[in-house]
């Protein structure tokens, strides 16, 4: 009966106004509830909010605006029996129903209409739960989920269930396809896999996935219509995070999916907190030393070259003393911003090591290619202007580049680059110095 979701919720249903400032429509006739909801959406989550207490004002709102999501009260003074919900669903706006009366019939009807979530006004945490639900569904838009099932209809049911939750959904018919999709789409955070499949079963797939992807980055949920009660334990033992038998209860599966996604999001936030530099938002020294050695090892194992650059802002101390720390910070942020734009998509690894010192791990580049690349960074920064209150400021950087050729400790590589940076400074600053120059010079 849930197969009909697909036709109601096509892929292009998501029309995010902007990733940061989502537009939420609150359809609720209770003055107190709606004012709390609006307040929390605006102030806690920074959303744009439009409130309507009647169908009339709802129609006016949708005529002039596009919404990312709606909180829907089923009964309004001029709408009974959830007509307004039908209108929201028809617009392809994800609906979170917030209702006082609830029973099994209503549940069936809500699921059939493809509501993203429903919450009952029966406890003191109900408002919290609505706010959490909205926040969750909006952030699902950035999360990839992969469905693996060889039976088309079963796959479609799962895909529909996920689309209603606004995930970016991928689907595969075989284990082999699933592995390819995973390799190509690193933003996939969850795999839902069937057990019985012709090429490799879900258990085998789980084990293969776990060789490369650990459960702090990728979650796996097994699913099966098998009557073998030991299957769940074997899936979990093989590295799945959860297991559900068919036929499943839609809400239960949704909850289990969300729990896994939330766990990953908590872990990610903690990782970022530990690894970012508070001022510039770049990766910090800790990340560089944590991640760097593995990157070097893997590129060396493939026999590809690799270099490391140390970059330092020229005369930064003078600048700090002359203009004050606030301007110094502004310069740091500007240089960091330029560097991350220049390095975006290159695969190289950038970090602020501390003070005015940055480092880049240049993967796949030998000394001369790395020096040429750093030269382009230097030129770009030399042309940049940092705006002050009534004037502009130019900055230059010096860069030392060393190729990583021998197997040594990671800090030795950095020391080499640091020595070369020192030589660049000695030669008058605003220049790149690499070991090739050392040999020829």
């Amino acid at each position, binding site marked *: 009966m849930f197969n009909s979701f697909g036709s109601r919720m096509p892929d292009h249903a998501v029309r995010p106004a902007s990733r940061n400032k989502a537009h939420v429509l609150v359809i609720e006739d209770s003055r107190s509830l709606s004012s709390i909801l609006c307040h929390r959406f605006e102030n806690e989550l920074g959303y744009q909010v439009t409130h309507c207490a009647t169908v009339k004002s709802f129609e006016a709102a949708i005529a002039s605006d596009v919404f990312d999501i709606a909180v829907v009260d089923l009964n309004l003074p001029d709408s009974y029996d959830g007509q307004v919900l039908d209108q929201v669903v028809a617009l392809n706006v994800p609906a979170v129903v917030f209702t006082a009366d609830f029973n099994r019939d209503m549940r069936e009807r809500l699921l059939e209409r493809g509501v993203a979530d429903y919450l009952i006004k029966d406890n003191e945490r109900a408002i919290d739960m609505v706010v959490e639900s909205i926040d969750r569904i909006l952030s699902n838009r950035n999360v990839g989920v992969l469905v693996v099932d060889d039976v088309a209809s079963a796959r479609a049911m799962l895909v529909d269930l996920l689309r209603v939750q606004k995930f970016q959904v991928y689907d595969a018919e075989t284990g082999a396809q699933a592995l390819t999709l995973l390799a190509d789409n690193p933003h996939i955070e969850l795999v839902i896999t069937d057990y019985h499949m012709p090429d490799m079963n879900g258990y085998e797939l789980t084990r293969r996935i776990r060789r490369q992807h650990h459960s702090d980055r990728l979650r796996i949920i097994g699913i099966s219509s098998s009557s073998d009660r030991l299957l769940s334990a074997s899936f979990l033992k093989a590295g799945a995070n959860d297991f559900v038998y068919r036929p499943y209860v839609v809400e239960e599966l949704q909850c*289990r999916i969300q729990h896994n996604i*939330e766990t990953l999001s908590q*872990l990610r936030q903690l*990782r970022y907190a530990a690894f970012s530099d508070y001022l510039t938002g770049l990766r910090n020294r800790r990340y560089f030393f944590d991640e760097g050695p593995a990157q070097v090892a893997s590129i060396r194992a493939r026999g590809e070259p690799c270099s490391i650059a140390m970059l330092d802002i020229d005369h930064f101390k003078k600048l700090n003393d002359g203009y004050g720390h606030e301007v110094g910070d502004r310069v740091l942020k500007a240089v960091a911003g330029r560097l991350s734009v220049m390095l975006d998509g290159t695969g190289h690894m950038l970090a602020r090591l501390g003070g005015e010192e940055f480092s880049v791990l240049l993967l796949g580049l030998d000394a001369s290619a790395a020096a040429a690349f750093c030269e382009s960074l230097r030129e770009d920064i030399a042309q940049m202007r940092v705006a002050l209150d009534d004037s502009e400021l130019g900055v230059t950087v010096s860069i030392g580049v060393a190729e990583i050729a021998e197997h040594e400790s990671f800090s030795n590589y950095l020391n080499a680059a640091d020595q070369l940076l020192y030589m660049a400074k000695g030669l008058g600053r605003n220049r790149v110095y690499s070991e090739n120059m050392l040999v020829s010079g």
Partner: protein
Amino acid sequence: MAVLGISGMQYSGETFPDVRIILGEDSNVFTQMISQRLKELMGVDIEICRTFEDMQMANELNDEPVVLAISNINLPGAENGEALEYMIDCNIPTIVFTGTFHDEIREKLLAKDIVDYILKDNVFAVDMLAESVYRFLTNHRHHVLIVDDSATARALLSSRLKRYNFRVSLADSGAKAIEILKTNPDIGLVVTDYNMPDIDGFELTRRIRSVRGSHELRIIGVSSSNNRLLSARFLKVGGNDFMLRPFIDEEFYCRVNQNLDTLVQIRAAQARTK
């Protein structure tokens, strides 16, 4: 440095040089692989027993108690599972490492009160065994609270969890559970029944969640109700997992592990931000 095992369990890098583990296994390939892996991952020097007699001697001729036994079902000198029976009779926690497996053997094994069993049928067998050993050695760090108004049900869950080496507290009502949680902030997992006279599992979960998030405390609901919507309701109010009774031992242990692994991962990530 901490590494994640295949099932998501975290090896903290800690070693257990003084723990006595004996391995009853007559295949050279496996004894070598297992001793090497356990040495690498947790600094354990296992004692290899190739026959039933070796095993009895290792246990009886040394004053230092055996903390854990890993044993094949059959060994030379014990072709009908006597080695396993011997371990159980001596009250030595045992992980079974076996090539043969069918329902009948499984029933027999579980009836024997073993810690876990691992099948040799795949390339991950030794890694899975290592994880099982590591879990047993570190499970006592986890404090689990069982909430159930039925004394039988409490005893059953508690004996299982203790077999896995967890620290266990018991509550016979929701109110008692809340009281215990207040005085024991180290509890990381609550396993709660649904139907209880004072506060049901649903209400208990809601109350717990108003003060403690799932990044610090995991909640697993269990119930013998046949209302399938119960699980969704329970998960929606903040439960992390839900199981319908009667459930099988392996699944219960896996789900407990799964939830505690997540907790350990979050705690480790939190510690890195400090």
